[in-house]
């Protein structure tokens, strides 16, 4: 049968829709809030060799984790006969394809036409618990990967449809919340099977030849759309530098450097000169770096079309091994996302001056991940709360920054409603509001960060918290003011206040308050040029204080009003 173009288009759309279908399956079956509220996962499909066809993303931070996982898996199973229908693989090793940190587990399902491998469906999700020294498998003080939890390197979870019971039992025996963890595992397998079944239907409907042609054409389409945008970008070499402040063990700051070269045909992003990997867990493997570079590349080329492998053909990433963003075994990596975000942000900072309407000024640049564990007084059950935090985004040349938004590595991430939160954890939220820390003034104002109070209602709870942008502020553009910083405070019974930016399982007693501030974003343009009505409105709305109006904008409120 002749492959007419519209049939190929329709198959392509069906492949792209796979991403959404698997995404919904995952979100509705997960056992843990980090998947269903923060949507800390990605699902997708690749062709038989690992070219990304479609991806359903909850967050941007997993953009390079599905296709690279397939590529690495094929290196571990070079004999085609060792991959069979009914197999399900899993992996979380950070140092190979698909790797981030141990909590993020990849599930891979091969799809066959008869005996012929034609595609993979893959997902990667943050599991509640994978064991290790600390609840939630995240710490700020690990010095080796072995302290961070169980590590799986492309293991068979199912062999020709038979579950690997020994592996499941091993996991169950080595994690703190086995029902949640095993539930997360089931959700991953279910989502991958939804995708595999759908590919099977497309195969039945259209046949192998048309399906494979549609896959090839889909990748070429992604490349065409991206190149059409690439030629419109300013050409030249753009550089930027920033820091990740600390590694949790007193080391740092760690410089991150980028040199971006844009030509008509490609974009080269060279991170040479970035600091070497460190002892503490603030290391990111090369997969994380690829994700980061792809994210910003996509943001400045074509953010609208669904991501596939073809979109990234014009992108070249350069970074020597062994840096803080290309870490090697056995570096601890549980906070990998902070340097990953810094890698996105520094690339962003290099291009923002020449793309002022596409890219805003610097934002809070942290997931601000906060983990609090303890025992619920009403039933004696252990709880482990983990959530990312919203902060302020930067202003762009024509708009104020967004208030209270998750960082660039998140995306379809939802905060946990206080009403659910309090029913699940022995914590009461006393406020969730914008703060008025100095920073972000500009002709266009940076977005507001938040202040969030957790009052402990358990006998005792333990805070693990890690942030960057605790010293170096979100960058401004065109004469605007830098943003504010991220940090946590513990308000003790005796009235004392402790400040933390990196801490692991700090005990907090009943009725003490953990208060977290997230950064406000950077401003754009000279504050003195801010529209007078807009400023008066800011003051009336409490986004700018009277004192800040005088000092940063040169406007005396009493006179002005």
């Amino acid at each position, binding site marked *: 049968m002749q492959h007419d*173009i*519209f049939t190929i*288009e*329709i198959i392509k*759309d069906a492949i792209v*829709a796979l991403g959404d*279908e698997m995404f919904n*399956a995952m*979100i*509705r*079956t997960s*056992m843990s809030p980090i998947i*269903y*509220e923060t949507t800390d996962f990605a699902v997708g499909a690749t062709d038989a060799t690992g070219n990304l066809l479609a991806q359903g993303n909850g967050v*941007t931070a997993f953009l390079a984790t599905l296709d690279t996982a397939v590529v690495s898996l094929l290196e571990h199973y070079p004999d085609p006969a060792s991959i069979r229908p009914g197999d399900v693989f899993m992996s979380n090793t950070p140092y190979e394809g698909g790797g981030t940190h141990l909590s993020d587990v990849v599930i891979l399902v091969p799809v066959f036409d008869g005996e012929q491998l034609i595609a993979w469906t893959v997902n990667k999700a943050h599991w509640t618990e994978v064991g290790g020294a600390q609840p939630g498998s995240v710490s700020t003080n690990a010095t080796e990967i072995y302290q961070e939890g169980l590590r799986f390197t492309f293991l068979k979870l199912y062999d020709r449809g038979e579950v690997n019971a020994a592996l499941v039992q091993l996991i169950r025996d080595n994690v703190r919340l086995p*029902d*949640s963890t095993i*539930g997360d595992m*089931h959700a991953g397998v*279910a989502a991958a099977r*939804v995708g595999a079944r759908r590919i099977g239907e497309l195969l039945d409907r259209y046949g192998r030849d048309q399906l494979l042609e549609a896959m090839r054409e889909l990748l070429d*389409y992604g490349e*065409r759309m991206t190149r*059409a945008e690439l030629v419109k970008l300013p050409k030249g070499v753009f550089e930027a530098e920033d820091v990740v402040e600390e590694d949790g063990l007193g080391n740092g700051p760690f410089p991150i450097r980028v040199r971006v070269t844009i030509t008509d045909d490609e974009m080269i992003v060279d991170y040479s000169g970035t600091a070497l990997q460190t002892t503490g867990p603030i290391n990111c493997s090369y997969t994380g770096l690829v994700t980061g570079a792809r*994210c910003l590349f*996509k*943001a400045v080329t074509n*953010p609208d*079309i669904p*991501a596939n492998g073809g979109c990234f053909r014009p992108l070249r990433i350069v970074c020597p091994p062994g840096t803080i963003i290309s870490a090697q075994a056995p570096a601890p990596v549980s906070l990998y996302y902070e340097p990953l975000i810094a890698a996105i942000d520094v690339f*962003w900072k290099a291009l923002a001056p020449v793309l002022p309407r*596409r*890219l805003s000024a610097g934002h809070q640049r942290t997931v601000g991940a906060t983990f609090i564990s303890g025992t619920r007084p009403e039933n004696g059950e252990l709880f482990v709360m983990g959530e990312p935090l919203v902060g302020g985004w930067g202003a*762009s040349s024509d708009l104020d920054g*967004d*208030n209270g*938004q*998750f960082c*660039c590595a*998140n*995306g*379809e*991430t*939802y*905060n946990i*409603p*206080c*009403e659910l939160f*309090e029913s699940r954890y022995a914590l*009461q*939220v*006393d*406020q*969730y*509001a914008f703060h008025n820390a100095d920073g972000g003034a500009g002709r266009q104002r940076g977005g507001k960060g*938040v202040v969030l*109070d957790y009052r402990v209602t358990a006998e005792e709870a333990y805070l693990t918290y890690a942030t960057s942008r605790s010293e170096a502020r979100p960058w401004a553009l065109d004469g605007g003011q830098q943003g504010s910083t991220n940090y946590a405070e513990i308000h003790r019974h005796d009235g004392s206040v402790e400040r933390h930016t990196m801490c692991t399982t700090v005990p907090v007693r009943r009725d003490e308050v953990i208060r977290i501030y997230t950064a406000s974003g950077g401003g754009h343009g000279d504050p003195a040029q801010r529209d007078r009505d807009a400023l008066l409105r800011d003051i009336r*709305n*409490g*986004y700018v204080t009277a004192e800040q109006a005088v000092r940063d904008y040169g406007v005396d409120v009493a006179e002005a009003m």
Partner: protein
Amino acid sequence: MRASSDVGGTFTDLVYYQVDPETGQCGEVRTAKADTTPPNFEQGVLDTLAKSGVPIGELDFFAHGSTVVINALTERKGVKTALITTRGFRDVIEIARGNRPDLFNFNFRKPKPFVERYLRGELDERVTYRGTIERRVDLSPLPAMIDAFRADGVQAIAVAFLHAYVEPANERAVVAEIRRLWPEVSVLASHEVSREWREYERTNTTVLSAYVHPITQRYVERLEDRLKDGGYAHPLYMMQSNGGIATAEAAKANPIAMVESGPASGIFAAAYMGRRIDEPNLIVLDIGGTTAKCTLVEDGEVKVTTEYHIERDARNPGYPIQTAVSEIVEIGNGGGSIAWIDEGDKLHVGPRSAGARPGPAAYGHGGANATTTDANLVLGRIDPASFVGGEREPDWAAVDAAFAPLQARLNLSREEVARGIVRIANANMTAALRLVSTNKGYDPRDFALMAFGGGGAMHAVALAEELRVPHVIVPVNSSVFSAWGMLLTDLRRDYLQTHLTRLESAQAAELASGFAAMRLQAMDDYGRDDVGFEHFLDMRYIGQEHTVKISAVRSADGDVDIAATADAFHAAHEKRFTYRLDNAIEVVNFHLVATIAVNKPELAEKPVTGRALGDAVIATRSVDFDQHGIHDATIYDGLRLEPGMAFQGPAIIQEPSVTCVVPPPHSVTIDKYGNYHIHLAA
């Protein structure tokens, strides 16, 4: 005489019929149409009544569906609204959920809240998640707050405190005090709007309801007055998003419950018709000019959800509305959807639409883009002789001009491009239909596809082929199905209460008393005791987030049969998510549907005169059926088809505003009500 009116974006429809007092049967369904008349929408309703010639005093029943709420929201035409929250939480409405669906847009802005920050007050109070009042609300700052709101021109106030879904006492105290201090202002508390948890969703819903409260109230009152002036002596009923009607009084109290009333009535009408013709399992599709909406009806029941949003799409988080709405998937694909080609040479159809003006190129009103309607015209599926009800000659020059750039880019003939447009439009709609069927674990082969709206009949058979649905139904009155549907509905209220408990025998008394309290509330709200109830539970495995709604199985004594309900949950979970767990089952929401049946006449049967099938044939015409080839199709006049008639494709059934396309291998029968059934060849 019974009548209903449906206010659409362009036209206001009236559907009415006489009831034969002897037989109780309804007479011929008639319609009238007038321009919609913003902002005084009631004028359009009165205009349709005037056009119909029906004296208002002869009406025995009048139901009304209005877009006044959704229009006020999307056009930002509500009133200045203030919000009072628990201290420390006034920014919840602005922080929202923090999500950014436009993942790779690093210059993103979330939608603005409906209440600016200076109009958000806070009061000291606290209720715990278990419903214990930790601190009673401190009302002392309220007078100054109210004065400030008044000075700022506020006309409505929303009150939303944490955990008010379980213990509303603090909200009630504030509402009472506001009413005392400022009796004229509209005030709504979150517990009056929703009894479900999630403070952002509930707060936003309350704000939106308050925002449209004064104008909805005035609108409904004006309509009541005008009808009363005309001699109407019965209650006015307003269509709700949950597929039922409410008295005007109840509708005014919480206007947000009307937000999606238009699509709801068509879907409920489909379910009703399905039950009458013994087709309880339906995939329902409503194709209009700009969008297509679809849903799934199982065992005659429409699924109702409270996870509804406005202005939400792949790039925008939109605004959540936590009210009972029939579960609909809507996509930007209708008759007016525009075909275009992107930089990667890919042909797309929609979501941009040519609308009513300029409309498709063939209308000759300056439409420069090829639309789905133009493609159907090019393929001969739409009769050029009866284009737009025969009122208009297609503007072929404009059609050629619209197709030319697409042909040049793709290097294809006009007919090939037209086929591509229809196929891609069908693929878009197929994707939406998959979301409500296969993606939720349903096999389309177990369903019939019921299609209505202006474009439903045109595309239905092709979509059924794609989904392997064996049977398509195009219902009688399909072009005014939504308005007609309002005459089939009952009074309905949905009560949802978040109440965490386990589905196990130890909790039997808690389950029973939970529902008993809700039933009492419902009877109290209606002020009568002839209320019919349906009991649902939103449940999940312990540890999960998202719930599955299960109709609670009830034992002979009326209480929940826990074992049987658990079995139903396991089975539904497995159907939808492919696996079941041994974990305990947790109840999250009690959901009670309380209805009061409205007396309705029997559905009218279409008269049989014994006319020969041949007398219904208008002509034969060459029609392009895409994969089925180009054939001389028999063109039937739908109005002349009679129950019992049967024929084969290739055929086209035409009514003044309906075109039903039947490709060659399939057969058609007409049932006693005049519905068309297309039986797909295997």
